[in-house]
């Protein structure tokens, strides 16, 4: 099939990102918009818009696609992007879903199923297991949990945690995005952590199942970009996303710095092996936890969609990943061989969010009064905001992604520093000051920081600011 008209079922910067490629390829775009987004920048850039009530309504999105006469849906990331129901509804409606098959989405979306697939494909998986549902049946926020009491014993889960060894990580089976995640350091906290994680998971994913996994620290988050056509699977290099706060990625880079070559080659091969095992079709990411000291890695999960941080991979490969997604969706098969994928230089991305780092990362919805971004060699800005743009409270806080690419990591860091100095967003609080301070930090500049780095760094920064104020 040749796609002539694509409905984009998303908003924000990724909507603009997908629009751009479609327009370059001569594909007509229809953007699904909620009432709050009817006059957004992406709505203005799209060839057409069509009103939907919610980006989360499968029937609504498919009906809008049919009504718009579009022959495909691009779901972006988040929202319905990994929802197998949408993929199946597309099939039923004779519409192309630009993403993996419904079966793969099901396998990847259920973290426990994904673990089983990874193990079957020969990938190292962290020890862990499902928490029986009656043990996770308590739900509530902090004080509420005590009030409703610990229904059901925690003998089974305590036994499991004991076998894994503390600390353990409580994770949501239907989860992702850091929700439903809890680190538990002793048995006394286990019952409540399981209950809270289960409640969060139910609220966020309509699936209360949680499981335990061995907690590895210090560790790094390294992921491998894969692309498949159902038969052939290749990798497009790796990314490091270890700069996180509360499991939310803030800075990502490609390739992962200071990774031993054996480790790097092993992870890339493992990601391809899993892709082949799943008969993966489309763009996906295999996430790993890396223990750099022991040169060990373990499978974490599969993200069966385009990711927020995909521009760093585009920078070093020179590819347009949305274009590759469309090519696979058109059934054209992989246009690239592994040998033809060349990695060039180093790229770093900063997520500029409408959050106030000086106030505990409090969300800062409102109206953007000014938006000035850097321009120049090696720089890319993906954004959906301009002066006058609304930042509505009901959606996530990502305003823009700044990507700096250089011949090597040192040049990328240098360009990033200069670029951050030229960013200016008014009207809402943003994470820009955090990124500027982080880019100037020596430990970050050295590269290869682990997952605990940012939280520790934030603690030191807060203290140093306080000391300045008292001096």
């Amino acid at each position, binding site marked *: 099939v040749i796609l002539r008209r694509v409905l984009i079922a998303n908003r924000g*910067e990724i909507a603009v990102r997908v629009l*751009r490629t479609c327009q*370059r390829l001569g594909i007509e775009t*229809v953007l699904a918009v*909620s*009432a709050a987004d*009817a*006059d957004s920048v992406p709505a*203005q850039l*799209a060839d*057409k*818009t*069509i009103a*939907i*009530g919610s980006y989360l*309504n499968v029937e*609504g999105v498919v*009906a*809008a696609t*049919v*009504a*718009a*006469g579009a022959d495909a849906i691009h779901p972006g990331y988040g929202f319905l992007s990994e929802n197998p129901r949408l993929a199946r509804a597309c099939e039923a*409606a004779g519409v192309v879903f630009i993403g993996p098959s419904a079966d793969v989405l099901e396998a990847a979306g259920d973290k426990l199923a994904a673990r089983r697939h990874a193990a079957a494909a020969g990938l190292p998986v962290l020890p862990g297991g499902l928490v029986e549902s009656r043990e996770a049946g308590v*739900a*509530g*926020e*902090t*004080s509420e949990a005590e009030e409703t009491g610990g229904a059901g014993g925690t003998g089974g889960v305590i036994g499991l945690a004991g076998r894994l060894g503390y600390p353990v990580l409580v994770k949501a089976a239907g989860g992702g995005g850091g929700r439903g995640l809890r680190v538990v350091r002793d048995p006394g906290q286990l019952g409540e952590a399981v209950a809270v994680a289960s*409640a969060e998971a*139910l*609220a966020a994913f309509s699936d209360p199942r949680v499981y335990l996994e061995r907690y590895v620290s210090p560790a790094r988050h390294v992921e491998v970009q894969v692309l498949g056509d159902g038969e052939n699977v290749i990798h497009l290099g790796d990314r490091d996303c270890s700069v996180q706060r509360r499991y939310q990625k803030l800075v990502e880079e490609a390739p992962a710095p200071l990774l031993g070559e054996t480790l790097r080659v092993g992870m890339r091969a493992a990601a391809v092996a899993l892709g082949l095992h799943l008969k993966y079709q489309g763009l996906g990411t295999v996430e790993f936890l890396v223990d750099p000291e022991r040169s060990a890695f373990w499978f974490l999960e599969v993200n069966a969609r385009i990711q927020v941080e995909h521009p760093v991979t585009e920078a070093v490969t020179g590819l347009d990943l949305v274009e590759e997604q469309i090519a696979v969706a058109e059934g054209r098969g992989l246009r690239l061989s592994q040998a033809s994928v060349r990695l060039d230089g180093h790229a770093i991305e900063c997520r500029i969010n*409408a*959050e106030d780092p000086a106030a505990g990362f409090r*969300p800062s*919805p*409102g109206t953007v009064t000014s*938006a*000035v971004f*850097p*321009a*120049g*060699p090696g720089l890319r*800005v*993906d*954004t959906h905001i*301009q*002066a*006058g743009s*609304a930042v*509505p*409270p*009901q*959606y996530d*806080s990502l305003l823009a992604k700044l990507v700096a690419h250089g011949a090597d990591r040192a040049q990328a860091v240098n360009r990033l520093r*200069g*670029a951050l*100095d*030229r960013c*200016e967003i008014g009207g809402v609080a943003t994470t820009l000051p955090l990124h500027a301070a982080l880019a100037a930090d020596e430990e970050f500049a050295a590269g290869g920081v682990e997952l605990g780095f940012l939280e520790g760094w934030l603690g030191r920064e807060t203290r140093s600011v306080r000391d300045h104020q008292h001096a």
Partner: protein
Amino acid sequence: MDLNSLTQDDVADILALLDSLPYDELDLETPRFRLTLRRTPGGWTQAAEVRSAPTALTPASRDADEVSGTGKAAADGGSAQAETASMEHRCRPSSIDAPSMSFERVPGEAGGEAGAREADGELVPVRAPLPGTFYRAPRPGAAPFVEVGSRVDADTVIGIVETMKLMNSVPAGVAGTVAEFCVANAEFAAHGATLLRIRADR
């Protein structure tokens, strides 16, 4: 450069030209967009503005009666249209530039409290710490944190305000008895909107 009809590559080409010229600013304006490039000591900056009106296939759901697109949608998309209509109902007032403002309607805040004020304890409002969706229960289907008549302490959680996907627990802030709710479950609350009132202990 993703904010106007020019691509990132176009902007790079323009910058390459500008770099060799003695100009420090380029202001490019068309009916559809405006692009401002400025030379600063550290390098170039860009500010873009798109100004084309969106082309809505449906009448942008301004009017709940007209939301269906072509004939087929009306048949296939019953639920979608229903959802559009209800969303529209909630967001109707206010300007498009600031959708968040349209949620600042706080039911019950203005009226229906005169009688309550006359009773003995002082009525203390509990306000939304952030703009967002107010939830009275920890999860769908669960018992509410508190009901009218519930006894609360200062640190009793009375609800959750969800802002940008983050759940913020709201403490009562004062000991007393819940007198009335001013925002219904799952409704939007503006920053500082009164969520409920507590008759404080004396």
